[in-house]
């Protein structure tokens, strides 16, 4: 190796001290705030609903389950059951799905080098939804609870690969091409979904329609058990490739010049995006905009470095979805609003604001 060292090695620490450090203080603060918010929201959300359970009783129940006989147990006869059979599975699902959606968004924006990429926008969610609808209509069940997830994964993978292959030209993805490709892919997947609704019987139709709106209603521990390992794999994989994702923002060619195997990185990332999207979609339905909004907010707060962006997005996604689900099930008495409707209601205007802001500061994306 003939690479030369700077001739100032004697003053190593002086020279390095001139460099600004990583934004670690800000990142730590963000993680602490999000972690505390998640814990508080979990306890609060568990207490809210048709049967109101005070926070100290929720704590008591949790501590009791952990083997600590501290605090008060829920006083209502159905309290304990409500908490552990209905609310906690649903809260757990909101947490893993929120993490999955925002990690998938951060990952996809990273590999496309494009802030507009999101599974919902480019049609991957619809692709996964179509495949899952096939399972519902034809009552396929050879893998038990895993069948829906497996089909959704394949559907998501095929659509992601399609968007990737169709929208790239000369080694990069133009924003306009990506959005238009997303529209095309969305249209095809939506047609498939429509066909499934047409073919299905009344029960299947109702199931598909509700599930298209997105809902965490009726979550069971069994479902959480299917989704969680997929999300853990996706999240760990995303974090392992975070430094490479940073370098990828230089563009394909320059990233290759600094030693990144771009094609392999992209392929692995696409599989992870499909995995995360499938995990989220298979039981919770289509919940749009979370993957778009969350990484954007985090980037504004702590910068674009993926080593912080990916885990912080995951954590913020859990808080967001937990909050959204709390509103979905408590905003209207005796009604469970579709959570996908809520996230789109908030995400749509936010997206518009984002477009205006980018237009002002950077002259737009195109």
């Amino acid at each position, binding site marked *: *190796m*003939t*690479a*030369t*060292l*700077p001739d*100032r*090695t004697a003053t*190593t620490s002086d*020279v*390095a001290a*001139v*460099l*600004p450090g990583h934004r670690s203080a800000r990142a730590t603060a963000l993680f602490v705030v999000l972690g505390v918010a998640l814990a508080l929201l979990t306890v609060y959300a568990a207490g809210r609903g048709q049967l109101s359970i005070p926070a100290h009783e929720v704590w008591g129940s949790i501590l009791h389950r952990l083997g600590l006989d501290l605090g008060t147990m829920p006083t209502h006869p159905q309290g304990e059951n409500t908490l552990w059979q209905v609310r906690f599975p649903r809260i757990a699902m909101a947490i893993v799905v929120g993490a999955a959606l925002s990690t998938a968004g951060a990952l996809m924006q990273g590999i496309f*080098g*494009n*802030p507009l990429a999101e599974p919902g926008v480019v049609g991957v969610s619809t692709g996964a939804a179509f495949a899952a609808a096939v399972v519902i209509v034809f009552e396929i069940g050879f893998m038990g609870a895993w069948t829906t997830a497996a089909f959704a994964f394949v559907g998501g993978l095929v659509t992601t690969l399609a968007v990737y292959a169709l929208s790239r030209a000369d080694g990069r993805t133009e924003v306009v091409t990506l959005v238009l490709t997303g529209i095309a892919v969305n249209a095809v997947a939506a047609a498939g979904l429509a066909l499934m609704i047409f073919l299905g019987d009344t029960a299947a139709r109702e199931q598909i329609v509700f599930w298209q709106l997105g809902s965490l209603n009726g979550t069971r521990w069994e479902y959480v058990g299917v989704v969680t390992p997929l999300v853990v794999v996706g999240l760990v994989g995303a974090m392992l490739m975070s*430094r*490479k994702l*940073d*370098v*990828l*923002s*230089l*563009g394909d*060619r*320059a990233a*290759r*010049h*600094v*030693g*990144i*195997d771009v094609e392999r990185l992209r392929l692995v990332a696409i599989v992870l995006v499909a995995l995360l999207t499938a995990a989220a979609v298979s039981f919770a339905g289509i919940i749009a905009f979370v993957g778009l909004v969350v990484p954007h907010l985090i*980037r504004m707060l702590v*910068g*674009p*470095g993926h080593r912080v962006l990916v885990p912080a997005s995951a954590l913020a996604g859990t808080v967001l979805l937990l909050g959204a689900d709390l509103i979905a099930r408590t905003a209207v008495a005796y009604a469970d609003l579709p959570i996908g409707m809520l996230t789109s209601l908030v995400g749509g205007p936010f997206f518009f604001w984002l477009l205006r802001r980018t237009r002002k500061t*950077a002259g737009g994306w195109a």
Partner: protein
Amino acid sequence: MTLRLTHVSASLGGHPILHDVTIEVVPGELVALVGPNGAGKTTLLSVMSGDIVPSSGEALLDGVSLHQWKVGALARERAVLPQEQRLAFGFRVVDVVRMGRAPWARLPEEDLDDVVVAGAMTRTDVLTMAERSFPTLSGGEKARTSFARVLAQQTPLVLLDEPTAALDIRHQEQVLSEARRLAADGHAVVAVLHDLTVAAAHADRICVLADGHLRADGTPSEVMRADVLGEVYGHPVDVIDHEGRIIVLPHLLIHPTEEPTCAPALS
């Protein structure tokens, strides 16, 4: 480290760009690639960097064909400064320079990251803008930041595609003196340059490309001749010796004493 191209031809999108180019680059020299627009300078640089596989002929780095190199190992041997500087997200200048250290991740050299990055940023005069967001920089500042990234990569072979295109004269001289210093330190440097006078002043060797052919290859005084340049560029030039420095002066199409044909006279 030796880069050897023998009888290389290459095409882009089915269109032949380079024809039968043979060139060798060895450590310790700064080679300037010059030639008119569309002569194939960038394509030749892409062949040297391993981005384009020649359609015929061989491009060997240390005796191994460039496209057989592993991406990571190649990144520890050659660095490339692209013509255009793009970045998808708003990373800070210091983060961009640090990206040049990516090939050394998980190797003993990783411990030197901070020193190397700080050194590279000092040498390109970007240390004062370390905290600024890359997309908000001017073209010249971006080019210098990218040059710092290339220096941070610490490779024996350094390929620069128009490193001075967006720079003022102070930073142009600064970047080219750094390129010269790299060569003096035993690196091999290849730079695409547009300004012939600048190329003659800094390069050890100049390669003139025209229509995809290598038309001349030699020291500045051998290559910078009015007849050669006039023919290659299709425009007559004067080559002047100014106190030992070569100056290339293109002839004017409209002579100042002639009557202007289109500009209205100012009253």
